[in-house]
């Protein structure tokens, strides 16, 4: 009897293990920044170069930092979802226009609509580097104390928004 059960158990175990790997995106690298304070920076806003933004301005609020660019294809996929999210007024979304020309970034938002509470321009990508950005779009959930609670690599979809991001935002907003 053992002779049949053991290989079966081994086979099922291996199958489960491999099956787990099937849906996994190897490009998604767990960010070491989760659980750490969001790196500080001061950047000009996209629409008005004289206005500056720093993450400290958002102290006491749960907010999303969405890294995008006019040259980024997947950003166009997530754009309508961000538009819908911004209309719900659940959470402020700060857009970080990553390694983009100011005019291109502004033109994209003017044409497709602007889902952002505020957009900042990271022209040389230095801030993006500090945030460990390597594939745009990326979205960070930052809590009231300025700690990165979650990082999404890739486009925001209605699925990961409703399953992961919004519940997390609600949970963080309930915290003191």
């Amino acid at each position, binding site marked *: 009897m053992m002779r049949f059960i053991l290989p079966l158990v081994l086979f099922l175990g291996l199958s489960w293990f491999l099956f787990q790997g099937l849906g996994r995106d*190897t*490009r998604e*690298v*767990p*960010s*070491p*920044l989760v659980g750490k304070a969001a790196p500080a920076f001061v950047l000009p806003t996209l629409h008005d170069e004289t206005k500056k933004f720093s993450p400290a301005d958002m102290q006491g609020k749960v907010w999303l930092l969405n890294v995008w660019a006019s040259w980024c294809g997947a950003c166009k996929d997530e754009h309508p979802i961000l538009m819908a999210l911004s209309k719900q007024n659940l959470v402020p979304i700060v857009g970080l226009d990553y*390694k983009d020309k100011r005019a291109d970034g502004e033109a994209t938002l003017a044409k497709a609509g602007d889902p952002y509470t505020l957009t900042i321009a990271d022209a040389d*990508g230095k801030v993006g*580097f*500090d*945030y*460990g950005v*390597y*594939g745009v779009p990326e979205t960070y959930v930052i809590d009231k104390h300025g700690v990165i609670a979650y990082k999404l690599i890739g486009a925001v979809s209605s699925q990961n928004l409703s399953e992961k991001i919004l519940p997390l935002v609600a949970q963080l907003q309930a915290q003191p």
Partner: protein
Amino acid sequence: MKNLFLVLMLCVPTFACAGEAQDLADDPVIEVRMIKLAEKVRCLVCQSEPVSTSHSDWSNDVRAIMRDKMKAGATDQEIMDLLVERFGKSVLFDPPVDKETMPLWLAPFALLFVGLGFLLMQLRKRKTQVMDSTLTAEQSQRAADLLNSKDTQ
């Protein structure tokens, strides 16, 4: 006319000249050091390629940052720490042995031991299955006869 055209066509290659790729660093010493260090860093965009050979935008940025830091006097270790801090240990082609990577390092040995244990168990089992049988005089005589018989059929 045809010959003139031919001559003109043959002249075309003389205008083709390959430009050498610009060496981006002003300092060749730093460039060599940077490339050596970049060989140890995984390009997160292209996964199995090191930053030293990758042409992705991200790798270009990482190389530029390495150059800047080296010019500012950072050690190789400081630069690696900086990268790991932002992108995690997966940027290292040779990850350190620590609590997080321990399962990966130990898994092959664990599997080897499981395999050896299994093999030992099977061998022991087989030993008990083989019956010790000594042949009677009559049986051994018959066996010898069979072996010796020239009849090969």
